[in-house]
């Protein structure tokens, strides 16, 4: 037993030891190739020493790796390939050393050590990559290149939740999104695998994780409900966490018997779980908001044009650090007129949010504004534009937000914008739109929220009086 645990202890050094052959052997290969050149001839004696040390460390890595693998926890196929390629590295390293030093008197082709060195280089690269995959999980190397984790999450929309299967349609997606990356096919931390009925039932190295009907005794439920700061909390801090609704659904699943093949309608539903189930049908209670910034990257705006605006006191800021899309605010200045707006022309590919509220711009400036192809938010509140100017904005195919509070426009004028596909919110307080026109406007903009403002509060007795002691 002690022997076993000592070997396990030695196995734990594998992640440390493996870096030695990688570094030393690669150094040996480099030295070997360099030493061919006359100017580096002095390093020749170092090559054999380096290769010897590398070969020894490769052997030690193999031994420690074997012991570590005995502990399990790893994906069997990847582990197997890593194991035999690792041993291959050690064997080639020894061979390479032996041939390089010419200890044996048999004859071989003089290019053989060089061929071996190339093979060794390739083999080390692949073995190392497989090792990384074992510890960090599939796709670790490329995860920053691809989309971030959150977006990759699968979301199933359930048309009729009562007909759905509780495990397959509701619970499994949660486990897949939040647990599989460490307890799934590619990695089994704590020897726990949660991607099938059998492996869930088997549990992990600390025993069973699921006690059907008893969520309080189920490690699976206990871990996700621990305080986030606790070490045993799952998923670990920093990883994407299940929502409260998802936790409540898991609780419900376990307490109703943790069935893997029952439909939702067959299970008892209390008042707490019903709204959560209904919410699953629409996926989200609130519609997903559209992106406020285009997703395609854009080139940087010409600095000269930006500086010109800044010198006039106009705020020109990227929408976020590292983005080239710009937000421009002309800040309520009567001094700003149509000529200043012309300065925006060079920024057309980048300008997404524009505030011109309270400035002296007129309809003429709208010709410039109409040529801003990526404009998403536009505030023209309290300006002197009219229906004529508004008509020039028909080309703003990306526009989501339009603020024309306090602008003399009419319902007819606004109709000219009804084909804008992305329009979501229209602020129309204090415009010249007649009350009679609201209905037709609502029909013209079925997808947008029209805010007409003019809210008033009734005067209540409490607004002007105070409660006194002898009331």
């Amino acid at each position: 037993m002690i022997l076993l645990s000592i070997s396990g202890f030695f196995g734990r050094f594998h992640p440390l030891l493996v870096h030695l052959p990688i570094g030393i052997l690669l150094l040996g290969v480099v030295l070997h190739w360099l030493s061919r050149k006359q100017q580096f001839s002095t390093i020749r004696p170092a090559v054999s020493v380096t290769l010897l040390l590398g070969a020894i460390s490769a052997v030690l890595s193999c031994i420690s790796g074997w012991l570590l693998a005995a502990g399990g926890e790893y994906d069997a196929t990847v582990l197997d390939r890593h194991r035999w390629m690792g041993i291959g590295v050690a064997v080639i390293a020894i061979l390479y050393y032996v041939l390089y030093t010419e200890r044996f008197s048999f004859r071989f082709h003089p290019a053989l050590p060089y061929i071996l060195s190339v093979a060794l280089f390739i083999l080390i690269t692949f073995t190392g990559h497989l090792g990384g995959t074992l510890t960090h999980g599939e796709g670790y190397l490329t995860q920053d290149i691809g989309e971030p984790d959150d977006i990759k999450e699968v979301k199933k929309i359930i048309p009729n939740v009562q007909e759905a299967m509780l495990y397959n349609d509701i619970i499994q997606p949660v486990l897949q999104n939040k647990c599989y990356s460490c307890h799934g096919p590619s990695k089994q931390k704590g020897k726990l695998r949660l991607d099938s009925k059998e492996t869930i039932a088997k549990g992990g190295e600390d025993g069973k994780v699921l006690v059907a009907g008893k969520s309080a005794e189920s490690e699976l439920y206990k871990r996700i409900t621990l305080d986030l700061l606790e070490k045993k909390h799952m998923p670990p801090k920093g990883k994407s966490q299940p929502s409260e609704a998802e936790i409540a659904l898991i609780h419900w699943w376990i307490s109703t018997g943790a069935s893997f093949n029952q439909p939702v309608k067959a299970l008892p539903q209390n008042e707490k779980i019903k709204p959560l189930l209904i919410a699953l049908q629409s996926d989200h209670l609130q519609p997903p908001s559209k992106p406020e910034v285009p997703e395609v990257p854009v080139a940087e705006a010409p600095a000269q044009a930006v500086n010109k605006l800044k010198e006039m006191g106009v705020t020109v800021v990227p929408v976020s650090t590292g983005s080239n899309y710009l937000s421009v605010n002309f800040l309520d200045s009567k001094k700003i007129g149509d000529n200043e707006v012309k300065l925006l022309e060079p920024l057309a590919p980048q300008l997404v949010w524009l505030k011109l509220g309270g400035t002296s711009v007129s309809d003429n400036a709208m010709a410039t504004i109409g040529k801003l192809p990526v404009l998403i938010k536009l505030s023209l509140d309290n300006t002197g534009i009219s229906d004529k100017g508004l008509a020039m904005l028909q080309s703003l195919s990306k526009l989501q937000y339009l603020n024309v509070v306090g602008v003399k426009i009419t319902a007819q004028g606004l109709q000219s914008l009804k084909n804008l596909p992305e329009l979501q919110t229209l602020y129309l307080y204090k415009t010249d739109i007649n009350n009679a026109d609201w209905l037709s406007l609502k029909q013209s903009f079925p997808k947008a929220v029209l805010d007409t403002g003019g809210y008033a509060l009734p005067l209540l007795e409490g607004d002007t009086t105070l409660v006194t002691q002898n009331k």
Partner: protein
Amino acid sequence: MTQKELHNQRLINEANHETLRFVTRRHFLKDSITGLGAMAFGSLLSGCDFWSSKGTGVNAFDSNNPLAAHPPMFPGKAKSVIYLHMAGAPSQLEMFDYKPDLMKLDGLECPQSLLEGKRFAFIRGVPKMLGPQAHFEQRGQSGAWVSDNLPHFATVADEVSFLKAVKTDQFNHAPAQLLMHTGGARLGRPSMGSWVSYGLGTENSNLPGFVVLTSGGKNPDAGKSVWGSGFLPSVYQGVQCRSEGDPVLFINNPEGIDKDIRKASIEAINKVNQQSYEEFKDPEILSRISQYEMAYKMQMSVPEAMDISDEPEYIHKMYGTKPGRTSFANNVLLARKLVEKGVRYVQLFDWGWDSHGTSPADCLEIGLINKCRSIDRPITALLLDLKQRGLLEETLVVWGGEFGRTPMQENRDGKEMPFKGRDHHAEAFTMWMAGGGIKKGFSYGETDEIGYSARSGKVEPNDIQATVLNQLGFDHEKFVYEFQGRPFRLTDVSGRVIREIVA
């Protein structure tokens, strides 16, 4: 030489002369020593990379224009924040957290299990339970519970997200306010508004980025530290403005000094400061210079921005404002005006919510109702007015106190109280947020049957701060400032964005 130049010259000469008058041989020796020390210290600090933006993900501190507008880390939903703080801690049990079961226990002794191991500010011995002292109804489509103390606000309950289970770990006003606004209960950390103006700067260079307005007769218990800049350059601290008299104290020219002389003086002072900056390289001197410049600009722009008398009559009716007085309503209207003009963070404190039950003014049946009346109309008007101006989408409104109040009636020093009141309670209370990308008509978190502690959806002050920063476009874990060799965060080492309430 113009009069202005002459004046400058005279001021500089005088300053130099004054300085020299105090320099003696001893000073020379002392200065030589501290100078060496300062050099050593300076090199130490430069190792700390004081002003670099390394790892902060935000723009470096630009001492020439510290309030220049900066982009956030990611496109934020909110561009500005109006934070309404009810100093003294309003009673959630009379406003938002309806507990019918507490009514059944009214007048009964508090069970020991709720008292064991707990400390209260004033409750001693065994207090009696106190049922809700207000009538509650479910409001709007969301069915949020709002009491009759807030009849106007009840009509806009569908606009906000309630946080029903906020928990803090401080039960005294000052530390709890500090925790709520600076992320830590002890003095010395920058307030949320300072962090925000450090991160985003201001879009209006004529106005401060962070304005503080107080009402209710007193400043908050934690004093000005709740809007202090802590270890951030002091240019980011909150500027306290008044809604009565001069908006900023001493902003008007002294008697007999005209605008040109004032400008010349400021220029001269700045020149002296610039010289001492070149000598000592202390960035605080640059803050000083930009504050003088800001003060001069504010002389021109603040009186206009802070004047609510130019608002139309129907707006005054809506908010219930009367120009020329200090009131919460006036401050709320001002907050809207400032946000419209590009101020990033407007912090309101309204004092007088500490309903202990010692006097009519601080009891639940009189004082609290009157406080509710004083805020009900203005906050409702604020939400609606921001909405109709298209500003609510990009303005985050936060409402709350520093903690909540106990489900037990206060029994100060174990004695019965003349009025009905509740003691400080850190375990659970209600806050709400609206606009700025927060869900509408939503409620998050739940307290137990008597409103004593959080049952689900517990959030803490650091979570609220993380959420505010998130709405503005900052990752609270990466938005840091290097100080004394370690990166500091508003949320220190905790905090979680309350994603549940983010639309």
